[in-house]
């Protein structure tokens, strides 16, 4: 699909939504409070005889939009509070200062009723160790999902460069493939390789959930160390969110998220899309503190000169995605049924190899995916209390890696050292390598409410994956071409109940992991593999008082080896069919506190955790005799133990000030006592793993004022700082101290100023990242961008 077509669809949808709003309407802005003036979150506010409704948010604040001029009766309801009807008159574009006091329900006296909370709040107070990030506070920033998540406790994302660069994602010290990613509960790989947390703009998401260590069974994924789920904007009645930003390094980012539901026919249309482009031509710098030097050839070519800085020159990145869903809702046979298609396309130039000492000038990677899907939802299926949701898709993922330049060994002055007519830039022969991956996924979830507050959930996911590759320049060389299929069956069964008037919430779950694979070996012999494993877990939370609770969770988790780990990718990864799954015992213990004192809200979450991860799957490098390039194979290794703690403190003063500070500590140590297959004690046994941050934190401060520059306006300033403590590149205790170096401590400052009018409908943000222009690294010898400035425009309207 071309960009033009994506844009066309976007514009058509925008027009269709916007077109229905030409009437005289106003907005009502107010707050729901208790008798002690504490804001009440999660109260439904509905205008009688209208379809206009909303739910109060943090601090009890709410906005009713598109309210026709005239007198209205507003109905307020929420569990734990007496229902109330309140009269309002709308005779101007903006009606502010509406404060409605709700009385606690008699029924709730002496009890705590949690069902009036928002979905995010319910998750936070569940037994799981979960971060819930409501993305609306970041909606005006230029951030992508990763940058939002990187502010969260226990999460560390290590990027290799600018927009679109590779990254590793860690939760509580477990990283890489140990973490699973979902979009609306569907594994992200089901959407093709182009969909990634480093290119999805924040405006596509409504909420992000980070499950640390223990993952609910309804995410039927084999996550060893945790999972991240993005809840996207969809199935809203009428909503549109369009944004565009431009900034440093010729970075353009556009995001569109729009929904339309026709109330009478139930016709429903959802569209999400984005476009990203960046030249990523940021300045690289020599940094003796980190032992990083930018070297170029001397004039005679026989030696090196060190230069202070150089601009990246082959790191452009472009990606776009469009996701269109059409269906019906509120039918007798379905609460919702939609069919959709997702297309994404990525172009990525490669600037460096494994370190910035290897400069690349020509190799690039193009990929695209086309993913049709269907989803279905039905409550009261056959009987009261039984509901079904189902999802299926077919992903065809194509990518091409082009290595055809005979100019090779670039230096930072953009000049190549050598020319070999028959060689590629990376390999000794030229290649245009085509990959074609096929990922089919089917998922069904049955929920059955056995009785009030007792819920049984069954989830089944089938995933089938295979892959082909060939070299366009040498199509008859199939020496390492493979096309093996891996089928995974994942079943999750959980039983959730709430006791003591919902103060005590428990979840017990079990997971089945099965995989079958057909292996075509190098000698063309075919064999079949099959294995299965069982995991299990429990989570529990208890509210001591309404504002304060404790929680604990445990899971014995597995991660199955992936297709490429098992069977290779035909090029740089040679398979190892003997791999066995990784497994881990994950423990969490935490507490949470959240209370309003008048207009002041104080929140604290704190926890400790322990991970005992075994049978790690790691890659080891090797050399290919024919191509002269390197390749890797995956093997099982001993694993690690991680113990740690994290704390987050939040404070808010009404709508004026928000402040968050968090700190995460992880002590990840080598858990394998003996060198594998020997009686030799490892020298690293019990030592902290090198080359990964072990103490890091964030502070996030925002101050904003409504109506400062006119009615309906808001001016907000945000200052955000990231801190990573110094850490060792290699084992601390080994080697002479004077020969070692450390990655220095980093304090990265970011700031943003946002001006909104018409109650957030139109927004403009000026944002600067890495304001003090520090030389920043997430990985040794891979410098990240310095100071960058972006300007973002956003239009947002949401009618519930």
């Amino acid at each position, binding site marked *: 699909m071309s960009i033009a077509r994506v844009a066309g669809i976007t514009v058509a949808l925008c027009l269709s939504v916007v077109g229905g709003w030409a009437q005289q309407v106003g907005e009502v802005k107010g707050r729901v409070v208790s008798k002690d003036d504490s804001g009440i979150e999660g109260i439904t506010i509905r205008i009688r005889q209208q379809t206009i409704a909303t739910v109060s948010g943090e601090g009890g604040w709410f906005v009713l939009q598109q309210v026709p001029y005239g007198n209205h009766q507003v109905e307020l309801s929420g569990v734990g509070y007496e229902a109330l009807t309140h009269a309002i008159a709308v005779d101007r574009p903006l009606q502010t200062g509406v404060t409605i006091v709700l009385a606690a329900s008699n029924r709730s006296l002496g009890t705590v009723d949690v069902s009036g909370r928002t979905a995010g709040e319910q998750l936070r107070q569940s037994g799981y160790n979960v971060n819930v990030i409501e993305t609306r506070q970041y909606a005006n920033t230029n951030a992508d999902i990763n940058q939002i998540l990187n502010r969260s406790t226990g999460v560390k994302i290590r990027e290799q460069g600018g927009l679109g660069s590779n990254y590793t994602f860690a939760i509580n010290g477990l990283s890489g493939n140990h973490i699973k990613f979902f979009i609306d509960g569907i594994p992200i790989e089901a959407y093709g390789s182009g969909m990634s947390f480093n290119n999805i703009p924040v405006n596509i998401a409504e909420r992000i959930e980070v499950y640390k260590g223990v993952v609910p069974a309804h995410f039927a994924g084999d996550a060893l160390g945790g999972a991240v789920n993005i809840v996207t904007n969809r199935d809203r009645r009428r909503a549109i969110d369009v944004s565009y930003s431009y900034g440093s390094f010729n970075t353009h980012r556009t995001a569109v998220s729009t929904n339309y539901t026709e109330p009478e026919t139930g016709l429903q249309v959802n569209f999400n899309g984005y476009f990203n482009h960046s030249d990523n031509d940021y300045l690289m710098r020599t940094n003796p503190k980190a032992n990083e030097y930018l070297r170029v050839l001397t004039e005679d070519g026989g030696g090196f000169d060190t230069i202070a800085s150089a601009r990246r020159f082959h790191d452009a990145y472009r990606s776009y995605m469009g996701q269109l869903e059409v269906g019906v809702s509120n039918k007798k046979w379905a609460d919702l049924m939609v069919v959709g298609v997702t297309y994404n396309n990525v172009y990525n130039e490669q600037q460096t190899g494994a370190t910035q000492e290897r400069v690349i000038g020509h190799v690039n990677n193009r990929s695209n995916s086309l993913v049709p899907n269907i989803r279905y939802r039905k409550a009261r299926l056959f009987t009261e209390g039984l509901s079904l949701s189902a999802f299926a898709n077919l992903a065809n993922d194509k990518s091409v890696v082009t290595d055809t330049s005979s100019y090779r060994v670039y230096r930072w002055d953009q000049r190549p050292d050598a020319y070999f007519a028959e060689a590629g830039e990376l390999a000794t022969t030229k290649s245009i390598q085509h990959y074609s991956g096929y990922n089919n996924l089917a998922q069904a979830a049955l929920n059955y409410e056995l009785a009030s507050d007792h819920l049984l959930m069954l989830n089944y996911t089938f995933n089938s994956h295979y892959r082909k590759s060939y070299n366009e320049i040498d199509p008859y060389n199939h020496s390492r071409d493979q096309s093996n299929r891996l089928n995974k069956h994942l079943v999750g069964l959980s039983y959730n109940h709430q006791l003591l008037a919902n103060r005590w919430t428990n979840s017990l779950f079990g997971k089945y992991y099965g995989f079958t694979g057909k292996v075509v070996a190098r000698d063309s012999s075919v064999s079949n593999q099959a294995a299965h494993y069982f995991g299990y877990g429990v989570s529990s939370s208890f509210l001591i008082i309404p504002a304060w609770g404790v929680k604990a969770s445990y899971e014995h988790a597995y991660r199955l080896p992936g297709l490429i780990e098992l069977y290779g990718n035909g090029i740089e990864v040679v398979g190892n069919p003997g791999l066995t799954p990784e497994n881990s015992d994950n423990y969490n213990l935490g507490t949470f506190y959240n209370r309003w004192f008048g207009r002041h809200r104080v929140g604290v979450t704190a926890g400790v955790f322990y991970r005992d991860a075994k049978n790690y799957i790691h890659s080891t490098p*090797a050399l290919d005799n024919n191509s002269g390039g390197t390749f890797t194979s995956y093997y099982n290794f001993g694993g690690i133990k991680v113990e740690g703690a994290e704390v987050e403190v939040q404070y808010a003063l009404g709508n004026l000030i928000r402040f968050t500070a968090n700190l995460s500590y992880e002590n990840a140590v080598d858990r394998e006592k003996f060198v594998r297959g020997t009686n030799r004690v*490892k020298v690293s046994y019990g030592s902290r793993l090198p080359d990964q941050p072990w103490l890091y934190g964030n502070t996030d401060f925002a101050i904003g004022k409504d109506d400062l520059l006119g009615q309906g306006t808001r001016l907000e300033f945000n200052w955000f700082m990231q801190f990573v403590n110094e850490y060792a590149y290699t084992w601390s205790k080994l*080697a002479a101290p004077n020969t070692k170096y450390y990655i220095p401590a980093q304090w990265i400052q970011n700031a943003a100023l946002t001006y909104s009018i018409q109650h957030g409908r139109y927004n403009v943000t000026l944002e600067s990242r890495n304001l003090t222009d520090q030389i920043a690294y997430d990985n040794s010898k891979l410098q990240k961008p310095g100071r960058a400035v972006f300007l973002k425009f956003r239009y947002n309207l949401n009618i519930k």
Partner: protein
Amino acid sequence: MNIPAISGKRVQLWLGAALMATTFSACNNNDNTAPEVIDDPEFAIIVGTGNGRFFLPVEDLMSGTISPVGKGTDVSTILTWEENVVQKGRDIYHVDPNAAKFGKYRFEDGVLKTIQEIPFSHLPSLYIGWHTWIDDDQLILGPRSSNYYAIVNVKTMVVTKSGEFDKTGIPANHTRRVFSVIPKGTKLLLGYGLYNEETKVHYDKSYTAVLDFPSLTNLQVTSEDERSAPIGALRNGYFANFTEEGNTYILTHPIPLGANKPHLPTGFFRVNDGTYKIDPDYFFNVSALRDGDQQLGVAYLGNGKALLISAHDTETNVKEWNDWWYAAMWQYLVVDVKTQKVVRTLDFPLLGNSRSAVVHNGKVYIAVNDPGADAVYIWEYDSNTDKLTRGAKVDGADNDTPMLYKLN
């Protein structure tokens, strides 16, 4: 067929062989000079720990404990590809394929110091397959499975010459893969194989050629032999040739860790004194004496004897690729190229792949990778008395055997 390669970690196993090859090629290239007697030899060792490799001083090969805790230099980011290391005395040379540089480093005061690094992009692949000292200052080296070469003057740190060997004798749609480059007087002897680019097959044949040095001209193909292949080592660091009484012996490496030709035997070819071709009447078939087992070269012990390591019963012991390194199936053999016999199997249990050895005063010191022992130990083997003695303990070594270096 593609040939799987050894992992980067495991390449360090070849370094000892590199040392040995260097040591003995130097000895034998200066034919019949009396070995220098060193009263106080210095040794060093590289120990891999599973995450980082450490270049350490060795105070005593035969007693005490050698440990990387608080000592030595982490060379993981300096000697980035262990197979690309060349040692000569205290100086360590390394081609960094990632940064495209050739570095000269010196081990002194217990740490590795950088002397000079120069750009090095003269070869299409910077993964080195072989090297040879032409004289004290000139190092010639080339990529694995390639016809390219480069000559570096390590005193001036200048690349003096580079390019491809003359293509005489290469049929159309074929490429030459050089495995051995051996100075013989004013000539260079090449041992190579031919690769069919259309069928993607490397022939089961060994070839030799000779060319003038230093002009690198006048290349003449001298012999073709199908008794074993490849003639020499596939990777930089294998011990693969020595010259004794003017005759040059070249070990073949058909083992899967070499050229992956399990149907061919490991053995020594001979190039007789005054000639530049394989002697058709000589082939020391080591595999035939070991029930078909294949071997890797470890070290030359002198007087026609060489130390090899032999993979025992690989059909049973090798279940996946890593087993070539870590399965306990290896035996040390002392072989005599004159009598064409295995004269000794060193009295160890079956070992992990362990080819680290240095020779000093007629004794060989081996870092022995015995999975059943509580550590890697250095063992001394005296071929005169046939006595094995256990020496220093190497603390913290992972599955990849530590590599010993003799610095003077």
